[in-house]
């Protein structure tokens, strides 16, 4: 699914933020990425969702060596990844419904084909009554749930979530984790970057920890 081999990353002439990062995300696996603030979690996620190329090393995604994959194929690869951004990155002028539907529109689906799915998903994350609400009128937790719904609505092959439960209460957090687990059961590979140790305690998923830009395997899932 996703393989990093000796990947390094630095911005400009600065120090390396990621050093010799090597790991493999198996297809259908459930993973956590932990680490202190500034450890490089967001940078690692940015490499995973193809926001930028690494300074060195090899990344293989969905069987494609990114160093030799033509740029014209990147949009198709990106559409197979669902991302929950730490700052949500919702479009303020669109309704919650239209924000969630965005990946389906990008995939060329028509409104009458996806409207029911989008409504059902928003209902599932507790926003069934706020389909037409614009993000600025929603609370932080509600915006986060819209962002999560948007990331999962197209049933991506790979789901990357950056602190997805940071702004929600424990009940909603548990509900969202169940959503991720459900998606994982349907075949999506999941990686959640989080500070929230309680999330890890609820599951037996693999934990990868970043310490000073290096990746340390902390826990492997039970067979």
């Amino acid at each position, binding site marked *: 699914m996703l393989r990093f081999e000796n990947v390094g990353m630095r911005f400009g002439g600065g120090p390396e933020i990621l050093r010799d990062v090597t790991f493999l995300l198996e297809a259908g696996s459930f993973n956590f990425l932990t680490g202190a603030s500034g450890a490089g979690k967001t940078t690692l996620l940015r490499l995973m969702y*193809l926001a930028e190329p690494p300074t060195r090393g090899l990344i293989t995604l969905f069987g494609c060596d990114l160093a030799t994959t033509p740029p014209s194929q990147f949009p198709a*690869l*990106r*559409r197979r990844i669902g991302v929950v951004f730490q700052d949500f990155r919702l*479009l303020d002028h669109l309704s919650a419904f239209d924000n969630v539907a965005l990946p389906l529109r*990008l995939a060329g689906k028509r409104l009458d084909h996806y*409207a029911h799915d989008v409504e059902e998903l928003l209902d599932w994350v507790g926003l069934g009554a706020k*389909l037409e609400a614009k993000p600025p009128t929603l609370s932080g937790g509600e915006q986060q749930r819209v962002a999560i719904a948007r990331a999962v609505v197209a049933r991506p092959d790979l789901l990357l979530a950056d602190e997805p439960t940071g702004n929600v209460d424990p009940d909603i957090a548990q509900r969202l984790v169940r959503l991720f687990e459900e998606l994982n059961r349907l075949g999506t590979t999941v990686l959640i970057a989080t500070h929230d140790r309680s999330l890890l305690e609820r599951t037996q998923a693999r934990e990868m920890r970043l310490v000073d830009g290096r990746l340390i395997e902390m826990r492997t899932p039970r067979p």
Partner: protein
Amino acid sequence: MSAQRPGRIMPRWEGAAPLDVVIGVMGFLAALALGASLIASRTAEGWRTGLADGLTVQILPHEGSGPTLDSESDTVLAILRRTNGIAQAKLVSDTEARALVAPWLGSGAAIADLPLPRLIDAAIAPGAIVDLAELTQRLKSAAPDSVIDDHALWLTRLQRVADAVIWSAWAILALIALATAATVTFATRAGLAAHQDIVSLLHQMGARAGFIASAFEWHYFASALVASTVGAALAAGIFALTGGLEIAGIEPVPFLPPLGLGAPQLIWLFAVPAVTGLIALATARISVLAALARNY
């Protein structure tokens, strides 16, 4: 169903309002230029049909040629009426001839004694071809003082004037199209910068460059279409008003041919918004695709 149709990917950008004004003004100017071209074409056609379907024979006076002039006029009239292709021929009366020169020489007693040539107006039958060389030869042998004028010189000069007006109008239209494209390019770049966060998100979510470009191009197409339609409608109103004044017998601009446009010609002016919209659409698309290729 929560929504009847999907929301616009790109929000309405308030910074684009000046673009609407500029394109509206350009649409107005372009419609004026196109109208001028249509008027020049119509006028040239009027001149052509008015002059090309006739010829004038002059019998030039000389010292003591009074009785000869009359007999030569009769001879010329007779020859013309027998000539194939000449539908009719008539002698221009002395009063009519003096009225023709009155704007230049005045109508006072001074020109009463002025010897004027005899003029014979002949109309060529529609579609008929008259062998002018052969006719000239026949007239010369029968009436040595006759000179035939098929209006070719005037027609050529008037056609040149009309062509100059038409080509100038098209050159102005080309310049306006160029300025529109440049303006839209500038506005598209500003729009891209203003919506950088949205473009970046769409790119990150796997949007194809064409999808992002289409979000911009339809926005600029619609803006240009509306603004240019307002400009063209204003120009059409001016031409329609001028036409109305001319029908009422008021000459808005002296010495010029009629400047009003009829309904069929006014409809042509609305080609301006359609073309402007397409220019905006194509320019926006090219600009966005170029910017995406450069930045992503």
